């Protein structure tokens, strides 16, 4: 008259996994994203500023018409070497220069006194 039945604990577990169905972060995709970003940044370094012309040059494209007075040609020194570009300079189609390189406002091109004095 002494044994009693011991029932097991019939309860579902405390944490229900359904609550944590979050979008799993794939480490592989995250890493590849970082690597791709890095790689494109590096690639972009190779082609960076290729659209820029050397000092004093302008890129001529069929584009917007600008005033001739805005465009300043190079000084006498560069004219000698770049004589073949003079013809291009005569066309009317020019693109406006940006502030990235020196314009005539900044440098006194035709000044006799130059920085490198002999």
């Amino acid at each position, binding site marked *: 008259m002494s*044994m009693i039945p011991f029932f097991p604990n019939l*309860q579902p577990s405390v944490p229900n996994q*359904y609550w*944590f169905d979050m979008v799993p*972060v794939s480490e592989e995709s995250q890493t590849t994203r970082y*690597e791709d970003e890095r790689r494109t940044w590096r690639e972009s370094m190779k082609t960076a500023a290729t659209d820029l012309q050397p000092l004093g040059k302008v890129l001529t494209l069929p584009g917007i018409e600008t005033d001739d007075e805005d465009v300043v040609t190079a000084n006498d020194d560069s004219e000698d070497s770049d004589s073949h570009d003079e013809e291009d300079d005569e066309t009317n189609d020019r693109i406006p220069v940006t502030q990235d390189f020196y314009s005539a406002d900044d440098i006194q091109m035709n000044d006799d006194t130059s920085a490198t004095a002999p």
Partner: protein
Amino acid sequence: MNLFEELDTLEPSGKPTPPRIENPTPHKIAVLILLKQYIADKKSSLDSGVIMNPQRRRMFCMLMFKIVQEADMSYYKFHNLLTSHRYKLDTLLLEAFEKAMSEFCANGIEALFDFSESQNIDNLLNESWGVSQFSMMGVYVRRVGVVLERFSFSEMVGMYKNFCTYYETGVRALAVGPNKQIAGGILHRAETPPATTEEKTDDKNEVALRINKPESANAAPSCSDAVVTEPTGSSSMGKWAPKQAKVFINKQSELLEHSERNALPPIELHRKVQEIINDIPLATTPYFLGYMNQLRVRDYKNALAALHRALDRSPVRMMSQEKGYQYFCVNLAVLHATFGHRDEALAALREGIMLAQEHGDKRSLNLANTWYCLLRDELPLSSVQRSVAEAADTDGSLLQNHTLALHFAVKLGTVAGYQPLRLFDLLQRSDNLTNRNNFADHASEALALRSAVWCAYGRHELSALYAQLLLVERDRFCRGSASVGSALASYALWLQLQGEMQLSHVLLYRAREHLPRMPSAECWMISQCHVIIQSGIYRCRWHDAMKACDQLHLLDPADAMLQRATIYVAKREFFNARRLLDKLVSQTQMPFLIRIRVQLLLGYCSLADGRFSSETVTLLLGVAEEMTESQMDYELALVDMVLAQLLLLLGMPQKAYQAIKHCMEDVHINGGLYERAKTDFVFVRCLLAIAGTDADLRKAQLLKSVDVLQRAAQAFKKLEAHAKVLDVYVFLAQRFNEIGERQLRNKYAGEFRRYYTEHPIPREYLGMVY
């Protein structure tokens, strides 16, 4: 961490943005240095054509696997792992690694810059002799490399300083510690650079700084350096990465659920959870682990706060649809249920059900319904039948619900006293489902339930066998800890009843270790109370038994009242016993087994008064009929035994003899030692009674029965039931006196005297009926 990032995750309409990759820690750099040495080794062996030992390669891979998944550790622990017995590195490899580490620190920051070169990283990921870039190790390497590449100069400097501090702390610890001097582990610096502090200064960081103060110029560390207690991972030395945190949380939550003893102790777990929250604030799961930890130590206020925090942190959207708060409501209900707040739990469940229906979430609706039934202790049978019918097709969670429902139905049926055949039918169906779908914990639950059902219907031996089976197979069912608890409790009580007190004590101790806290500790606590009560009844220690009843009252009031009534009956205080029994009879919602036993005790009460009446006989016969109907054979056997005693008193020896013969088999198979010995005693008395007045016959019967009575006396001695032992000797001496066998009479009188001097029992306890 960016505040805007945190706010973004809480915004309901935004899509989830993937988190940033964490900054590498010195531990990770050290792991990569080790990997680099190994790959160099592998390359040289490939070039030279000598094959590397495959066992060594395998153990190295296992070592890497372990390191990648665990949290960051200090250099001291890392080195101990490398030289541990299981993962012992090849000596040359270990030396090369140590040399590389010391050179890294000695050669200045260029070493770090060289290391983070993309070419170096690519070398590690080389196809022919490196790790595959898509493997776990490869992703680990790439994650470190990709962040190192982007570091600015100041970040590199900080990284380098941390690394040097990490290395030198570890080397000092190793030099002071029990290991011998390591090759190449010489400090090239005169003083340690101070570790960089991060924006968040916590105590551990300051401790790390204090330990790493610039030492004097001598390289030999003094023993007053308390460096062996190295700083834990929350300083800049170690940081939790998401993957490591995930592995840790999954493992700990699994352990907390199934085998709580093997999880980390509460305080340490709390500390680790705080570290993870510090390092990865946007994740939800550490908050939930913190909640489970609080629940484990039964800290109500903190558990509630932790649950709210986990809710606050959880994402509002899941799979581009509103998730809603139904799961939170169900979890809140579970919290209240764990602490026994039934009404609050039911209120939370009602809200959860409403929300689940609103969002059309079938899973959470099922879960909420399950808990609703469990809390109200009722189960609509129609739903069980319907769910059993459609059980074949549905997915895993619903199937688990089905098996749970079946088990619950079986439990309710047992408590209510249904036909055992139907209950076993339900169990069979549940076994079908369980075996087809490999639910390990449901299988162990089913075994424990079978044990309980057999026990309730009186087949105690079978019940004990099932309990033993569960305990033996618990390695296979390593997840079913709650069922193991009930099996331990049941088997411990059985052993106590068989007279094996020591074994019972061992089992209860084991149960206490396995399940230290409520609510899972309930089963072994009840078992322990019963053990003490039984032992008290046998030895006539009424006070101990009463105290145990008081303890039992907190766990199971009805059972406690029944036990108290039993003690009164055993003590022959029938007035008190009857009072309690009447109170029990008037209660309506009682388990069937307890109702039956109450009737039996009432029978005892009327029997032992001496003023018996035919009413008692009618009562007992009625009870016997009821028991036969519900197939409770053992209780029927006990009724027969009482009936036999009653009939002897009434002077109907033949009928008494029939009754006792009827019940002896059942009692001997399923009864405890006490019942068996008592039955033997009553049997002998009946035997002598039917011999009548014929002296020779009586003598012959008596001499035949001496063995039986000796066995009964032995049994009573084993149980320390001294009063009963003395009863047996008195009976024997008196009978031998009647038939004139003086020698035997003296023998047994002498036994009586000897036993009485050893165990003096008050006279009033002799000759008891119970």
